[in-house]
C-alpha cells in the first residue's frame, strides 16, 4: 500500500464534537493554553490570536476495529484510526472532537497495524462501505459495540480535565453539548449543503454534502465552529431559565455571561474556502447571529435596568 500521498477518495467523513465551558476561575491565556493542550512533547500546539484567541492541540489517534453504526443494521467492520483533538477558544470554551475518514472500499481482511498508522484518521472498511446507511447510523447513534466517536472525544476531554492547570471553579454552571456530523461527497454538479438538527438531550446532528476531496480536518473545523456557536446560544438562553425579572438574582445570573461569554461570538473565524458559504445558510435560517444579538440586547437591557441606582442608594451617596 503506498503511503498517504495516494490515499483513496473518502466516501464518508464523520465526527463528534463535545463543547464545554472550561472549568477554571480565570480564562487561560494563550501561553497557558499552549501548555494545557500540549498533548505531545514533540508537536506544537497551534496558536492563533486573530481574529480571536484560539489554541488547538495536535491530533491524537485511537485504534479501532469494530462494526460501523448503520441505520439498516447491516454489519460493516472497519479498521484504522480515529483522530481526536482539543481546541480552546479565548481560553474559556473547550472543545474535544473526534473524526474519521472512511474510504469506499478496503481489503477483505485486516492489514498489519503499521500500515494503518501511516494514514492517520482513516478507518478502512473490510469490504465495501454503504456510505448512506453509515451516515444515518453515525447521526442516529449506534448499538453497543459500534464505532463510538463520542467515547473517543470524551476520553480526550477526561484526560484534559485531569490537567493540574484546571482548578474546577467554573464561573457559571453550564451544560455541555454534543454535536455529531456526517459528510458525504457532493455530486459534481451539486452545491455543498448542510442540515442542522437540534435533537433531545443536548445532541445536535449535522448532515453535510461537501466537495469531493475536502479534507476531514476542514469539515471538522466547520463543525467545531458550528458547535461552539450553538453551545453559546444554548448556554445563554439557559441563563434566563428560572430567573424572575425584577429581582437581584438577575444580576447574579447574567453577570457571568457578560464576563465570560458575550465576547466569544465570532462565526466563521477559522472556516475556510468552499465550506464558508454553508454558514451563510444558517445565518439566513434560523439566523444564529440574529438570535445571539437579541439575547445580548436582552442581557444588556436587564443589567442596565438593575444598574439604575435606587433612591435609597442615591441618598446614601449624597454627602
Amino acid at each position, binding site marked *: 500500500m503506498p503511503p*498517504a500521498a495516494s490515499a483513496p477518495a473518502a466516501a464518508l467523513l464523520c465526527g463528534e464534537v463535545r463543547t464545554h465551558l472550561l472549568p477554571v476561575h480565570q480564562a487561560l491565556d494563550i501561553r497557558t493554553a499552549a501548555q494545557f493542550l500540549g498533548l505531545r512533547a514533540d508537536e506544537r500546539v497551534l496558536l*492563533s490570536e486573530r481574529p480571536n484567541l484560539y489554541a488547538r492541540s495536535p491530533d491524537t489517534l485511537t485504534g479501532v*476495529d469494530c462494526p460501523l453504526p448503520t441505520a439498516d443494521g447491516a454489519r460493516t467492520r472497519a479498521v484504522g484510526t480515529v483522530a481526536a483533538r482539543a481546541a480552546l477558544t479565548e481560553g474559556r470554551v473547550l472543545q474535544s472532537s473526534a473524526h474519521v475518514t472512511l474510504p469506499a472500499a478496503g481489503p477483505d481482511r485486516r492489514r*498489519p497495524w503499521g500500515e494503518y*498508522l501511516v494514514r492517520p484518521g482513516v478507518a478502512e472498511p473490510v469490504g465495501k462501505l454503504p456510505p448512506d446507511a453509515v451516515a444515518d447510523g453515525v447521526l442516529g447513534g449506534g448499538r453497543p459495540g459500534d*464505532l*463510538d466517536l*463520542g467515547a473517543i472525544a470524551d476520553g480526550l476531554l477526561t484526560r484534559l480535565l485531569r490537567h493540574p492547570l484546571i482548578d474546577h471553579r467554573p464561573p457559571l454552571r453550564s451544560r455541555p453539548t454534543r454535536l455529531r456530523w456526517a459528510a458525504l461527497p457532493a455530486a459534481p454538479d451539486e452545491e455543498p449543503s448542510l442540515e442542522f438538527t437540534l435533537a433531545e438531550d443536548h445532541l445536535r446532528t449535522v448532515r453535510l454534502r461537501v466537495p469531493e476531496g475536502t479534507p476531514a480536518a476542514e469539515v471538522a473545523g466547520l463543525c467545531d465552529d458550528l458547535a461552539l456557536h450553538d453551545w453559546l446560544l444554548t448556554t445563554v438562553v439557559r441563563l434566563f431559565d428560572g430567573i424572575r425579572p425584577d429581582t437581584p438574582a438577575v444580576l447574579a445570573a447574567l453577570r457571568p455571561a457578560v464576563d465570560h461569554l458575550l465576547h466569544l461570538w465570532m462565526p466563521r473565524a477559522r472556516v475556510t474556502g468552499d465550506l464558508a458559504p454553508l454558514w451563510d445558510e444558517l445565518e439566513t435560517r434560523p439566523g444564529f447571529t440574529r438570535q445571539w444579538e437579541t439575547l445580548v440586547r436582552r442581557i444588556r437591557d436587564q443589567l442596565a435596568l438593575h444598574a439604575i441606582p435606587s433612591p435609597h442608594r442615591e441618598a446614601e451617596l449624597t454627602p
Partner: protein
Amino acid sequence: MTGAVFRETAADPRTQAVPLSHLSLEIGHLYLEDFEAGPAQLRRHFAQVRPWAEAARATAAAGPDGRRPRISTCFLVDDYFTRFSSPAELVPMLLAEADRAGLVIDYLARESSCAVTGGTPVAEAVAGRIVESPPPGSYGPRPPAAETGWLANGERSPVARAPQAMQRAAAWQPPAETAARRHSVFLDAELWSEDPGGRRLWSCPFLAAVWQLARLGLLRAAGEPVLVPRAHTGGPFPDDWDDLPALIRLNPRADPFAAYRTCSVLPSRFLPVEHAVRVILDQTEVDRAALDQVADRSARERTPVPASVADRISYVFYAGP
C-alpha cells in the same frame, strides 16, 4: 483586487526535511560487557560483520537505475545504562578495529541521546506517539490502564480482578496476538520502569526503537529534526561522554545519516530486543510531515519504501554472543 496576506507562524507549523541515504547500515552496538571483553572481542565482531555488510551493500546497489546507492554506516555506544571508558580512549580503538576489518564507521551515536537530546525529551515524545493496535472489538473507549509502561502485540490475559458481589470471577484465558496466523506469538515489552523518585528509566528495546526512527529520518521535535549529525572537527576525542556530540560524523565523505531503510548487523542475542523493537515501531505513529517528505523523496527517486515503518528495518543476526 487587493493582495493582503495575514499569516501567524504559530498557526502555520512547518516541518524541516532531512537529507536521506538509501540505506543506514548499523555495524555494531557496544555495551559495557563487550568493552570489558577487550579489543579481541571487537575484532571478532567486526570480522563477523564484514561479509554481511558487503551483502547489504550489494542488495542495496541493485536499484532501479543502477546508480550508486547512498549508504551510511553507524555505530551505537551505550552511555545510558552504564558509563564506561571515555571517548578519548574508546573511539580511536573502535575506529582502528573497524579499519582493520575493512569497515568504515561514518557516524557514531551515544545511546543516551535516544532518551534526551539537547534538552528534547526524545523518548518521552515517541512514547506519546504510541497508538496501540486495537484487538477486534475495539470501538473507541480506551482501556482504563493504558499508561502502564508495557506494550504488547495483542491482548493480554484478563487480570483477575475482584468481581462484584455475588458474581463469579472469570476463568483464565490465554493472551492472543492480534495479527496471529492460527497460533499466537505473544510479546509484551516493557517500555520503561520508574525509580522510587518517579524518574523513568527507558528500556533497551524502547531506546532501540527511537534509534531506528532517527535512522529512518522520522524524528522531529516541533518540526525540527532531532539527532542532527555534527562533524568531527579533528583533534582528540573528549574525556567525558557528555562532551561528545549526540551524533558525530567521523567520515567527512559519508552519505547522509538517515535513510529510507535500515539494516543492523548484530549478534543473535539481540533477537528478543529487536522483536520488541518491531512491536513498538508497528504501533508508533510517526510525524506525519516527516513521513510525507520521505514518501515524496523516495517516489521521485523511484525507490519504493514500504508503507509500514516497521517494514523499513531489517537485520542480520550472526551466530555468536
